[in-house]
């Protein structure tokens, strides 16, 4: 789906075409969950955040004067909501409230390589995390990721490459630490 396609769908959705919004929802919901997950590291909370984002977008759609920027606008809403939720959770933790889980509550029993990689990903810079999840989980193209994050395809490519390098180096570092006498 291109920016132009989005623009057409948003415009027709605003004119009352239900099918158009259906397609937008189907298209973006998984990506919103992925973006929220990079902030919250909790699938359930991420889905909450994604739904909140749709509600907020629904309430504020009149603000969107450039329908071709719908994807980036929606992603920004979702990220803001997820960040707010993460902050709230952090405050609750700080206050000693037990009903919350830390962002990186890695189980020491889940000590396999995948868990280690997941932890490394969630320690990357936020934009790298987004790209990793949009690329590997949502399986979005570079152009679609660029559209959602409001950056160029070249930037997506570069950040993804740097993210992979970091993950590889960190894995190697941890592996060498484990083999040290």
């Amino acid at each position, binding site marked *: 789906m291109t920016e132009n396609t989005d623009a057409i769908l948003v415009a027709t*959705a605003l004119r009352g*075409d239900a099918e158009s919004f259906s397609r937008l929802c189907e298209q973006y919901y998984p990506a919103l969950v992925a973006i929220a997950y990079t902030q919250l590291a909790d699938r359930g909370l991420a889905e909450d955040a994604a739904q909140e984002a749709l509600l907020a977008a629904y*309430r504020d759609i*009149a*603000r969107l004067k450039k329908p071709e920027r719908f994807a980036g606008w929606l992603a920004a809403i979702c990220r803001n909501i997820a960040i*707010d939720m993460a902050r709230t959770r952090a405050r609750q933790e700080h206050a000693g409230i037990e009903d919350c*889980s830390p962002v990186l509550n890695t*189980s020491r029993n889940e000590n396999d390589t995948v868990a280690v990689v997941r932890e490394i990903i969630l320690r990357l810079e936020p934009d790298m995390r987004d790209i990793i999840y949009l690329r590997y989980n949502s399986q979005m193209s570079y152009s679609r990721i660029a559209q959602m994050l409001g950056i160029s395809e070249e930037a997506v490519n570069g950040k993804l490459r740097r993210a992979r390098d970091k993950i590889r180096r960190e894995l190697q570092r941890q592996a060498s630490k484990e083999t040290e006498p």
Partner: protein
Amino acid sequence: MNPRNDEDRLDELIARAADLGKVEFDREEWLDRLAAEPEKPGVSTPQTHSTTSESHRKIWRTIMESRVTRYSVAATILVAVSLVLSDPFGWLDGRHGVVLADVVERMNEVKTMTIRERRVYYEAGKDEPWFKTNVVQYVSSDRGIVDEQYGEDGQLQGRAYIQKDPPQITIMLVGEKKYVKLPLTDSATRLMERLTPKALVEYFKAGDCTDLGTATIDGHEVTGFETRDSGLFPISGQYRFLFPIKDIKWQFWIGKDQPLPVAADLELTTGRGLFTVFKELRITCHDYDMEYDPNIPSTVFDPNIPADYTPLNLESTLKENAAWLGVGGLPAAGIIACRRRRTRMRQRQTV
């Protein structure tokens, strides 16, 4: 291991680590959440433009909180449904003792009708009515339909016009001194076409009907017929989110002395939709005092908006919400438990 294999291995690890499982949007849960959600100030949406969203929010809140408004909107659909009353009998033809061909022929000659209706709304599963109205409908085969809705106190609450020319719906809200005009867009026109007597007759031809026997109504000896909808109501597909009818039961009572309907009863249950204020409803309509070819002044069909009424900018809101609630077109697949935040917060999910 060669570098290529290393890269593939890294890709595989990252893909597994980033796998969140299948994520799908669930329309019903989202609508639940929308209905339950109080307005939340402070949500950080990008400030890209000066905004009219506040007014939209107020309008939406008006729709959600005003009984008159919500039911005036809902009434527009029910008015359309009631079109069937002007020619619902083709499906019965030849199968019952009443000479139904005569009914159809006679109905085709009718140019105007007035109908009185008692319309009661119940929330699903509740016995106490949620809302009651008395309705007077004026029907003209040339001009359209006017639906006047009165409260229990006899006060006029609202008036809805469905005009053929120009093709538009006009709703006047007496209490609020507001009015709104909704053009019959292509989509809406298609919806209306599905609700015409012809379309409904076509539909009902596909169903079975039951002979209810004879009775006396208002001094007329009548024969009754009943049919039940089995999910094939003409509001289908992408329009179902507006007024998602689950089940419908029609009863018609036809006079023996003259081949015309004397009374009709309609009971329908709905799912959550824009025009049901996201509630599951049971709605009963009892139509009586049907007059045929009365002399109705043509001005009745002209929306005559008093000078002190101001426009309610409902059109854009309805369009907007219709669009956004158009997730009705989505297949409801997967489960998103929007209420699970509380429980999830108690669970320490490992990452």
